[in-house]
């Protein structure tokens, strides 16, 4: 049986190897901080296995997570100058390989789907090939490995170090932002442990009349929209609104389908992202790149679609999630 923990070790190992490369990269002015961040993250991925098994204490991992927050939060990470191809080299490579470049990229979702739908049902000697409950995640991991092999074959690249360096370049340019979704999931767990959910639930239940499904759905989706507009980030709004309305009211009290409620709720938050200057990278940066006089031009182009889609999302949850 292929276990999901093996896959987490692989991800952890990739982080540690890339951290070792970063440490030696003298083009990066903050190479020590960068290497410390990704190296520590990689180690955390290994240590977590025993925390989940409850054979090692979780407190040291908590300290390490706070360490990651400090390294990233106080801007101690940076990026080097990646050794890569130039724009004109890329153009001629693209002309040479053509549409073949898309094959490895399409391999990832294809393998992931096959694993989740078909391989998940395969059993050898009575036990499933893929660990139960982790089929999609394992599919993604296998997909990435197969895609890398296919890519190296299609592009006639023999050195494993080339994709590792290229991946490290992407990792460095995304920086600590890559860890933000996971930390927001952690924050959601702390909210729950501290009783935020119960508190907000009491408030919501006193506002919402009993069994008003449409009002509850609208409150959840509109809440995601408004919080996203204020914070500029649907990911940050998600733990708050889900603890307040999504989980306790829509899923527990009204028996909504969790996948439908939460997936569409997140998209209602995306509608908010389309309307807010707080999401600078999506709305203000394009205006600057296109040299627009009106920096709110993209938001004005997006807002009517966003409002109509918010209504659609409310309708989708209301009609199909219960």
């Amino acid at each position, binding site marked *: 049986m292929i276990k999901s923990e093996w896959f987490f070790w692989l991800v952890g190992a990739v982080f540690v190897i890339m951290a070792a490369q970063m440490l030696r990269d003298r083009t990066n002015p903050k190479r020590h901080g960068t290497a410390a961040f990704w190296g520590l993250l990689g180690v955390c991925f290994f240590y977590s296995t025993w925390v989940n098994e409850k054979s090692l204490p979780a407190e040291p991992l908590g300290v390490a997570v706070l360490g990651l927050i400090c390294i990233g939060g106080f801007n101690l990470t940076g990026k080097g100058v990646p050794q890569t191809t130039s724009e004109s080299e890329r153009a001629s490579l693209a002309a040479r390989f053509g549409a073949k470049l898309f094959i490895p990229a399409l391999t990832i979702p294809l393998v992931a789907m096959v694993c989740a739908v078909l391989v998940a049902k395969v059993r050898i000697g009575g036990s499933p090939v893929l660990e139960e409950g982790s089929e999609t995640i394992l599919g993604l991991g296998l997909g990435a490995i197969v895609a890398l092999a296919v890519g190296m074959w299609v592009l006639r690249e023999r050195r494993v170090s080339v994709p590792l360096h290229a991946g490290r370049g992407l990792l460095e340019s995304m920086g600590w932002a890559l860890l933000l979704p996971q930390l927001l999931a952690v924050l959601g767990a702390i909210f729950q442990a501290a009783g935020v959910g119960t508190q907000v639930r009491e408030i919501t239940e006193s506002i919402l009349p009993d069994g008003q499904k449409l009002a509850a759905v609208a409150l959840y989706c509109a809440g995601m929209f408004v919080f996203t507009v204020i914070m500029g980030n649907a990911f940050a709004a998600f733990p708050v609104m889900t603890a307040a309305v999504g989980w306790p009211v829509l899923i527990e009290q009204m028996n909504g389908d969790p996948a439908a409620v939460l997936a569409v709720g997140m998209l209602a938050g995306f509608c908010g992202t389309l309307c807010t200057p707080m999401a600078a990278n999506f*709305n203000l940066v394009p205006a600057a790149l296109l040299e627009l006089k009106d920096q709110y031009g993209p938001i004005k182009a997006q807002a009517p679609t966003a409002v109509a889609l918010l209504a659609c999302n409310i309708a989708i949850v209301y009609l199909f999630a219960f």
Partner: protein
Amino acid sequence: MIVLLGVLVVVLGFATRRNPLLVVGVAGIVTGLLGKLSPVEILRTFGESFASSRSVTIFAITLPVIGLLERNGLQQQARTLIGKLGTKLTTGRFLTLYLLLRQLTAAVGLQTIGGPAQSVRPMIAPMAEAATERMNEDRPLPRKVREKVRSHAAGTDTVGLFFGEDCFLAIGSILLITGLVNSTYHTHLEPLHLALWAIPSAVCAFFIHGGRLLRLDRKLERDLVTANAEMAVAREDAQGRSPESTEGGAAK
């Protein structure tokens, strides 16, 4: 009740543009203390929930292959593909086609081939403008119309990305949902189910935004007519007034 101050920390932190990692860290500690957790319990909660939400960060495993493809010209190839599409289309039709393409590619995990810097500035905005110029008998566009076309090029890219990427199961938002729910509420959600539930909204997004883009052609036509008329009036005014203004200048 007082534990809700933790939520306030998050809202204020993000709204005042503090570093998101620090906001999360501070909000976690503050909320834990207000909820009467001991410091050791807070550390334990940080550790345990990190361990059970690792699946959120695993999309990093796809970076080496994406990096390999990008250094071999993936984005350039995507541009060539788009370039073949739209030399004879109107602005609205071209942008609708790009919307569909952006949604489909994002849905199979190719979020990086588009974007304001990767495709909109070098490719989509110029082609959309060129289409509008054809509508304007190849004269340069008035500033207002040009701004509107460029804004729509940027907006189409963003809408296509947002309402395509969630159909891909290894995207941050989908993994955040499963990671949060699985570690907080101790149930089990599969990323694939969530990705499937993103499809209805993606279809709505295509029809709503695509419909608006198709109507954009008529709007641009009207804008061009009024802008050209205004310009003609301004030119006549300038010609009619120019002798007077020279006289006025001489009188001074």
